[in-house]
């Protein structure tokens, strides 16, 4: 069966190229506007730990104590943030892939812990109250 490509299809692919360019420029613009990223850990909706992420930083590992012996061990490197170990029943947070972009988050529902990456150092917005 003949399904010839038409002139408009070229326009669609051109549009795709433009979109890719916009995306790359956006990433570049955000990367250079300074501020960088930070990782924020919230326990029950309260911020209990935060740390900047920058190129060449030394890997950090810390333990979040969620009370009653519940804990999550979070490891922070420039390449990504992940929950290394936890004693929660479902282990969803440990199995989550490591996160590295602003806006991404790892949630441990049983311990009410949220590990998220924010752009810059401003206070986190009031959306996604997942853990509370």
């Amino acid at each position, binding site marked *: 069966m003949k399904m010839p490509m038409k002139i408009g299809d070229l326009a669609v692919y051109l549009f795709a190229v433009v979109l890719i360019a*916009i995306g790359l420029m956006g*990433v570049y613009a955000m990367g250079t506007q300074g501020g960088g990223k930070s990782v924020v850990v919230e326990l029950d909706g309260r911020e209990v730990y935060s740390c900047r992420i920058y190129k060449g930083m030394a890997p950090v590992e810390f333990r979040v104590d969620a009370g009653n012996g519940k804990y999550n061990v979070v490891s922070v490197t420039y390449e990504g943030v992940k929950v290394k170990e936890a004693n929660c029943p479902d282990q969803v947070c440990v199995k989550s892939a490591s996160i590295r972009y602003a*806006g991404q988050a790892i949630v441990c529902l049983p311990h009410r812990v949220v590990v998220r990456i924010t752009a810059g150092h401003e206070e986190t917005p009031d959306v996604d109250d997942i853990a509370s």
Partner: protein
Amino acid sequence: MNRVRKMVMLALIISQALVLHLIEGFIPVVAPGIKLGLANIMTLVTLVLYGFKEALMVVVVRSVLGSLLSGSVTAMLYSLAGGILSCLAMGWLYFRWRAYFSIIGISTAGAIFHNIGQLLVASWVFGTIGILFTYLPMLTVAAAGTGFFVGLTSGYIIKYLREQKWFKWERG
């Protein structure tokens, strides 16, 4: 085609879209957000054979039911936003600019707008526009590829259905 026949055909199309939607969930993805967009095949077929209103209905019903069966409320939000935007784009291209676009081009545009819709919702949910920029290039490259094959498949299905004697339609 009488109303009952049309209703039955749409129901069959929706159930096929639903199955494709669910099967897609089993296929591992190379990167977050990249999917084959198989369910889009049925949207495109409906769009061409029945019309815009019917295609939109297929998308909405498929998204809602598919999310109920496999995902969460957030997944439904993503699915709906992507599906509706993609359907609008494809409908606009098909009914206004049909002379200039092949089915492959329309399908690719639909895949691209599906991504845009999902990324807009993701940006809104996470409260940062950064997600849109970081994922846009990767997802657009993927959409160009998957859109091509979805368009090809839809073209064959549409051709097949049009050749069938039992399939009488009222629209071109």
